[in-house]
Every structure is written in C-alpha cells, then in structure tokens.
C-alpha cells in the first residue's frame, strides 16, 4: 500500500498565519527519513525547519524558494517508491483544489487568558485535552510565546499550560523580591486559581529553578520535572548576559545579547528583537528584571542551588550542548536515575532550536512515568 504524505506549512506560535520558504534541504528524488530536515520556513517572527513526516522519497517540491504561503498550505510531497507519479499528482491537485487558508484567528484556536492569582494578573495559554497535564515555565526575560514550537505538539492528547511569570510577558510586572521562591509561590497560586492539582513541569532556565523550588516546597503538585538548560544546578551563570539584557534599551544593544541565547545566531531576526524591545519598554519591566538579578545572583553566581531536589521525583535534564548562558557541565554528577540528554547543535534556547527532539524526550518521559 503506497504511503503518500503531504508536507504542509506548520503553525508556529499564536499569531503565525503564513511562512516564507527559504531553502530546501532535499531535492526531488532524494531518499528521506522521518524527522530529517526537509525545508526551511520563516514566519515574520522566527525561522525554523520543517521535518520530514515519514520515510520515503521526496517526490515533489510544490513550493519554491521565496514563496510565501498560508499556514497549512502544501509545501511538498513525500511518498515511497510504490506510489506512482499519477497518484502523487492526484494528491497535489486535490489538495490545492480544496485548500482554504485559515484566518489567523480561526487557525489560532486557543487564545491566551488571564486570571488573578494571589492579587496578581497572570496570563496563560492552555491547549489540548487529555489525562496528563503539563505546565511549561519560561525563563528570565522570556514569556509563554517561547514555547511556540512545543506547546501545540505536546498538546496532542495532553492538557498543556504555559504561563507568563510575574514581571514577564503580559502578567503583572510587580515583584516583591524577585527570588525564585516568589516566582514559585506565584506558580502555585496560579495552579490553585485554575484548579490544576498537579502537572508534569517543564521549566527552562530560571523557569527550571522555579519548577525545582515548587517540587521542593509542594512536591504533591509536581508529577515530574523536565529541566531544559536549567538554572539551580550550579553556581556559574553568564551574568553579563543577564545584566546586559536588563540594561539594553535599543535594538543595537539588545541584538548581541539575544544572539548569545542561540547556537545559530541567524535566528535572531529583526522581529524577534523588536518584540523583546517592546516587552522591555513596558512600565515596571526594568525594575522587575533588576530585582530578579539582585535576588537570584551574587557576585555573578547563582544563589539558590536546588541540586538536592533533583531526583526526588522523576526528573530529566535536557541541555543544549552549545549553551552560552549556563554551562551544561552542571548536569554532571546527578543521581543515576536522572536522565540527562545533550542536544547537539542547540544553545540555551534548546527547546526552540531542537524542538522536535525536546518534544520527543518530553512525550516519552511522561509516557514512561504512567
């Protein structure tokens, strides 16, 4: 039975409604494997690569480099040798005849919501349905949008929450101290507010330290921990990045900071920088970031170390091998039952640079735990 797969423009993030084809990695006739990089697509916010959906041969490149297509549009066709050219042609014709580009709002589906938890406004986004719940917690200076390659795939058969921590995104900007404990208390208050009794936590960077802190104080709320490039496992940190990020108030000052987050600096495009700049200019953000730095770091080192929390409940650590913010060496010497995975070619934002791998690790980790 011939298997024919349409490769389509994926939706990365809430507001993406179209993408531009930047480069093909494979040519018609090439043998391809499931998960291989197939074609680079760029939305106005971010560039990423579309992976091959199945083993087979790339039969058609429907979209050419430079084409701008709606989310869901046909990029190409992968099929095995058994599929005839005629069958491939039929798929293409039928697809193009019936394809209707969705409005961003319709295609968007879930929209972020706001709750008030312990006197603070918290923005969050919840997607998907399922027996297992996940809670994604971003890092310093970031927001729930940084899970744009992760939240939707993980929401297949699971209920996935992503929040904006206080001082970040569109949550309240006020912080009392900016300590990890304060952030953790806010996360717990949020969970209470949305009646989320427990979840599998996925934390990035400072968000991982926050997750560890919640696991430390109220372990009953945490089903498992996935720590992505986590803070809290060792004292070293690129403090110049943190202070530089907090101080930067122009494109030229911010861009070199953001570039340090990625192994591939080309991912830091103008729109990304502008979005971060817009966030940084909001009232109270500078103070929030500076308070956080003062509370969580001393003499350029992390204050709150939570290594002993690692492993009290099921924990895995994913680390971008080229992380320039927190050294991946912090994952060495952990308990033997803690899985540690190095992600080659990824920097500190490993969940954005190697999303498919990260999503697979999370999915299989959660499944194993059931």
């Amino acid at each position, binding site marked *: 039975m011939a298997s024919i797969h349409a490769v389509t423009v994926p939706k990365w993030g809430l507001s993406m409604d179209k993408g531009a084809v930047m480069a093909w990695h494979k040519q018609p006739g090439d043998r391809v494997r499931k998960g291989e990089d197939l074609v680079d697509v760029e939305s106005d916010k971010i560039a990423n690569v579309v992976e091959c959906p199945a083993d087979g041969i790339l039969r058609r490149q429907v979209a050419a480099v430079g084409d701008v297509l709606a989310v869901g549009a046909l990029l190409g066709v992968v099929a095995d040798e058994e599929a005839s050219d005629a069958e491939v042609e039929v798929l293409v014709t039928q697809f193009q005849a019936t394809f209707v580009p969705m409005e961003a709002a319709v295609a968007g589906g879930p929209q972020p919501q706001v709750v008030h938890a312990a006197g603070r406004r918290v923005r969050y986004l919840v997607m998907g349905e399922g027996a297992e719940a996940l809670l994604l917690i971003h890092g310093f200076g970031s927001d729930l949008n940084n899970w744009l390659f992760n939240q939707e795939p993980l929401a297949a058969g699971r209920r996935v929450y992503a929040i904006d921590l206080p001082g970040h995104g*569109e949550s309240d*900007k006020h912080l009392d101290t900016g300590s990890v404990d304060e952030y953790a208390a806010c996360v717990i208050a949020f969970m209470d507010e949305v009646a989320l009794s427990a979840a599998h936590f996925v934390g990035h960077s400072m968000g991982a330290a926050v997750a560890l802190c919640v696991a430390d104080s109220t372990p009953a709320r945490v089903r498992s921990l996935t720590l992505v490039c986590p803070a809290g496992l060792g004292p070293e940190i690129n403090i110049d990045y943190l202070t530089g990020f907090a101080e930067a108030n*122009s494109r030229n000052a911010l861009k070199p900071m953001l570039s340090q987050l990625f192994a591939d600096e080309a991912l830091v495009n*103008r729109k990304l920088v502008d979005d971060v700049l*817009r966030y940084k*200019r*909001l009232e*109270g953000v500078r103070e929030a970031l500076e308070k956080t730095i003062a509370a969580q770091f001393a003499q350029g080192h992390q204050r709150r170390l939570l290594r002993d929390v690692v492993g009290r409940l099921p924990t895995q650590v994913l680390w971008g091998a080229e992380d320039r913010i927190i050294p991946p060496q912090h994952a060495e010497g952990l308990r033997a039952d803690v899985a540690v995975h190095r992600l080659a070619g990824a920097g500190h934002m490993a969940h954005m640079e190697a999303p498919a791998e990260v999503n697979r690790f999370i999915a299989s980790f959660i499944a194993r735990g059931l």
Partner: protein
Amino acid sequence: MAREISYQQAINEALRQEMERDPSVLVMGEDNAGGEGSPGERDAWGGVLGVTKGLYPKFPDRVLDTPISESGFIGAAIGAAAAGMRPVAELMFVDFMGVCFDQIFNQAAKFKYMFGGKAQTPVVIRTMVGAGLRAAGQHSQMLVNVFTHIPGLKVVCPATPYDAKGLLIQSIRDNDPVIFCEHKLLYGLKGDVPEESYAIPFGEANVVREGKDVTIVTFGRMVHLSNEATAELAKAGIQCEVIDLRTTSPLDEDTVLESVAKTGRVVVVDESNPRCSIASDISSLIAMKAFGDLKAPIEMVTAPHTPVPFADSLEDLYIPGPAKIRGAVERVARYH
C-alpha cells in the same frame, strides 16, 4: 495586554496614564474639553476630532479649554513649563503656528541655552499635520521641517498607534520642548498597543521592513504609503528596506546610514513641499556621509512646490502616492 486600538485612542490613553501618574501634567487647547461657559455639555468635544475626549471628567481641574488665542495659551503653556508644570498644549492645526511661532521658537526653544543652562521647559505641543482630508491650503500642511530646523526643539512624528502612545509618553516625560505631530489621516488606524505604560526613546528610527535592494527613508503617513509600494515592488523582485524616522529631531542618522551601506540605493519620501524639507535634509546627510556607498543618485518623493489644493483630484495628485514611490524605487534600482 496587547489589544487593538486606534492611533487616536492610543494618544488619549497616553495622556490619561501620564495624568494619573504625574499631577503636574496639564492638558490645554481649543475645545480640548469643549463646552466651557456654554449651556450644554462639558467635555462636549474632547478636541475637534475627539482625541482628548473623556479626560475632562477624570481630571476636571487639569484639562483647560482656551480662547482662540494661540500666542496666549501656547505661550502660557511654555511659561507654566518654565515655572515647573508639565503642560500638553494643543495647537489644533500646525498651520496655525504662524500666530504663535515666536513663543515656540524664540522663547521655549531658547530658554535653556540663553539662560546658560539654568532653565528647563518641559512642554509638549501636540498638533495635527498633513493633507488628505480636503481641508485645503491652510489646514493641510506638514511644516515638520520648520520645527526640526530650530535648535532646542524636539520633533516627533509617530506613524502607528504603538508609536503614538510610547512616543507621547516619552514626550511628556522629556524635559525639553517637544512638538508632537499627529497625522490627521492616521487617527483611525488600528494597531496592537499594550495596555501598560511604556516609553519609546527619541532618536530611534524603526526599521519597518528589511530588504537588500533599496532603502526608503520616510516618516508619518508616508510610512504606510511606502509599505503599499513595497508590497508591489517585492512581486517585481525589488526588496525594499523601509525606515520610519519616528523623530526628526533628534535624528537617528546611524540607522539610515547603516541601511544605505547595505543597499546603496535610496529614496526619501516626505509629504511636504521639497525646498528645505526633511527629505532634502536626509538626502544631503546621505550624500555627505555615505557617498562611497551610493550606487545611484538619491531620489526624493515629495509634494510639489505648491500650497495644498482643495479639489480632491488635485489633492490626490499633491500627496505622494504608492505609484510615485514605486516609480522612484524602480529608477533607483535600475540605475547603472
């Protein structure tokens, strides 16, 4: 929260948030509330186009209607600023600057310098600029270049709702006199604007669109007409980089020159008349500082050297449109 509001609402919100934050912020101008002394409603107009509506009920002692005496109340705003308040005065149409220009360019602009640094004049003068409303010669000018010429003034021209709110908040907080130019045709334009307060620094141009072939330098409403032109040009394979100056004084030279270094080809788009304009200012700057980068002569797309005509057919010819912009970009792109 990011939500969509209009340019006009963004300005209103900036005023409201700053008045909430700082009791020394005043709003004054002709009909800024409306109805003063009249038998009917107070806050009858909230400004001739409703931009300041709703402020008077919230701050009844800080929103002042004025008689029609620009010299008097613009000068009063300036005097009040020198005496410690933060007035936001409205010069209803920039075309009326003739009757109060002395207070602006000889008094406000020069106090700090002439008094040896021992004064500051944190006044904002909001004013409507631009053509397209069929308002004819005395209600449709830009005149941004005239203010830009004067040392001691800062001149701001937001093109989007996001920029309007952030730049007005910055203007109110700035300790120098600021001329804040609101394009009449942009009032209804909607865009994402955070509910929270934020300030955009002066002297930072916005790269609205990136492109490797031709640089378009522009400001105000022309940003949007340039964007229309660039969409068409992209189809023809010409990728334009569009730079919105945002503030003509202070001017972000670096962003302009960086872009010229990249593309080597420049079109400057300015709704004003061409002589001694922002366009000619930018053109001379580029010619002087980026001569080696240029692969083609600089082109300016401006209005003709005439007053703004009334008849719609003529006004539409007067205003530089996407077709004219496209023509200039194509010439510059093809030049060898």
